[in-house]
């Protein structure tokens, strides 16, 4: 039954070729716009995702809290309360992968090649774990480096470019605040962070070295913050509770007293960034899908004209034994064919559009299979929805009236 009906629908559309093409154009443009817009949204999302992943996953930042003396409150981290020992204790908690204390500061760095002001982070080997940071070459900071406060450094890619040029920096000496450090390794590139900072413009040294030698007197034995990585996204809320209890206990904070530290959940921040990208994708798609509805109305319009024009044909078919559902199916198939053919061409156009935007606009675009499947699903729905009314109108004609129609 479907076979001859498909052939019939095809020949009916072919008989009015220009009209069919113009009708399809609505779907073509609609689907093309949806595919292109979704690809732009997906591209943006992928970019945000990559940035988030470069940050490390399931992270907390534990900061020293604010202090109040009289009416004056200091900002977060104003009171140095966190210590490297806190970090070690946190690392012992269940579901904690890594806890890296960070004692940061800025310093001038000098080599034979030149000099450069950059951020120095005193930390431990846990930093590499938490931030999912691998080494391009060399060795990481070890536990014994931290214990003995040795003058070793891991340097970022930007530092290499500025202070070594093409030379291999591993094993070379750099001077930070005039103290000689041996470059033990080079960090793999991470690119920009979410807020646009260059994550590769940094030097990692053992936390003890930073506390006692580089920034002596600034930290004592405290650190500015601790980066903590939970073992999984599911474990995050439990880890946060455990950390709070642990730190309150270690800092001897009595009941009813405020915490002297803050725990920030970076995963939540990452989620909201991803969500923003998602909302943008949806909005673009929503705007584009309006043209799909317009395309659908075009199909309905032409199908109504077609039913009127072919009233006599419908009468002949009914006289020969076509049931209502046969006529309904025939016109529904025609509408579906219009919308699906339009969709097919529109997908091609959309992929072309996405490619053009990438080429000329410099925006990342990603055409996902899901967006193509979505386009076909929507086109089917549009074809059935807007084709049903004209098809039903055809099916409900009385045979004798349809036959008499001139």
């Amino acid at each position, binding site marked *: 039954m479907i076979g001859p009906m498909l052939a019939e629908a095809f020949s009916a559309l072919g008989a009015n070729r220009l009209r069919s093409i113009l009708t399809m154009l609505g779907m073509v443009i609609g689907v093309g716009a949806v595919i292109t817009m979704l690809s732009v949204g997906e591209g943006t999302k992928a970019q945000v995702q990559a940035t988030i992943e470069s940050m490390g996953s399931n992270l907390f930042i534990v900061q020293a809290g604010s202090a109040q003396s009289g009416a004056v409150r200091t900002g977060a981290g104003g009171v140095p309360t966190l210590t490297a020992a806190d970090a070690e204790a946190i690392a012992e908690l269940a579901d904690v992968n890594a806890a890296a204390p960070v004692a940061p500061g800025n310093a001038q760095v000098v080599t034979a090649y030149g000099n450069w002001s950059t951020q120095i982070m005193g930390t431990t080997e846990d930093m590499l774990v938490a931030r999912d940071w691998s080494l391009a070459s060399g060795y990481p900071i070890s536990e014994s480096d931290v214990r003995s406060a040795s003058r070793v450094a891991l340097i970022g890619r930007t530092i290499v470019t500025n202070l070594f040029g093409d030379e291999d920096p591993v094993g070379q000496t750099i001077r930070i605040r005039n103290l000689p450090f041996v470059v033990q390794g080079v960090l793999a590139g991470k690119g920009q962070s979410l807020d646009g900072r260059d994550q590769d413009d940094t030097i990692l040294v053992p936390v003890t070295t930073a506390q006692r030698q580089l920034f002596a007197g600034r930290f004592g034995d405290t650190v500015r913050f601790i980066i903590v990585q939970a073992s999984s996204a599911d474990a995050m809320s439990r880890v946060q509770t455990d950390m709070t209890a642990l730190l309150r206990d270690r800092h001897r904070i009595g009941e009813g007293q405020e915490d002297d530290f803050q725990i920030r959940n970076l995963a939540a921040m990452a989620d909201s960034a991803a969500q923003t990208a998602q909302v943008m994708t949806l909005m673009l798609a929503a705007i584009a899908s309006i043209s799909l509805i317009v395309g659908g109305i075009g199909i309905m319009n032409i199908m109504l004209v077609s039913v009127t024009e072919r009233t006599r044909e419908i009468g002949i078919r009914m006289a020969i034994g*076509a049931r209502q559902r046969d006529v309904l199916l025939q016109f529904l198939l025609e509408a579906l064919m219009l919308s699906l053919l339009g969709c097919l061409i529109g997908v091609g156009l959309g992929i072309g559009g996405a490619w053009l935007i990438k080429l000329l606009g410099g925006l990342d675009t990603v055409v996902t299979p899901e967006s193509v499947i979505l386009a076909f699903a929507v086109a089917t729905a549009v074809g059935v929805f807007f084709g049903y009314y004209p098809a039903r109108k055809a099916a409900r004609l009385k045979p004798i009236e349809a036959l008499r129609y001139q």
Partner: protein
Amino acid sequence: MADALIRVEGLKKSYVSPAGTVEVLHGLDFQINAGEFVAVMGPSGSGKSTMMNILGCLDTASSGKFEIAGKDTAQLSNDQLAGLRNEVIGFVFQGFNLLQRTTIEDNVALPLVYRSADKPTRRKEAREILAKVGLDGYALSRPNQISGGQQQRVAIARALVGKPKIVFADEPTGNLDTKTSHEIMDLFTGLNRQEGITLVIVTHEADVAQYADRLIRLVDGRIDYDGPSRAYFQERAA
């Protein structure tokens, strides 16, 4: 008594018009048996086409009883009526009513499409029937490429392809010249005599009606004559 294929009792048809209700058929009673060849005559406006449309299940009666192949049409749904049109009835129109975009073969096979017959079957049966009406070799032509007489043969083939019990023809020769008309009537007569197909033909031409065995003459929506056609024409000639 022979098998009654069609039984009509008190059949009335009226239309509602702005001027009021117009009754076109004022209560017809007759029956048609299997194998009969019936001509329906009458002046224009006598209601013969209206009657034909009701008998062909294209239209419904306002009141009265109409049974075809033992089924009371008043009790049937639209789909069941479509089923009757497809399997029990063949219809031939004055204006041929072929689908212009479709090949001769596919036009003839159309009733089989609505029976969900597969393509080889449709093709085979359409070609067989085309050979029977003398249109071998035209299977892949289109209606606008052949003459009126040939088009009517195609329409007859389409009416026959479903092996109906009865074929209705409404002015089948109305658009044809005299010579072609006689060829078409010879074809009909052959089908009735050799294949035993029941035929009901509406016409206003006496020489067409003379092919039939029985004549029903309508005047103003009433049966004016119902009997052997030979007797009627002999009486008139006398």
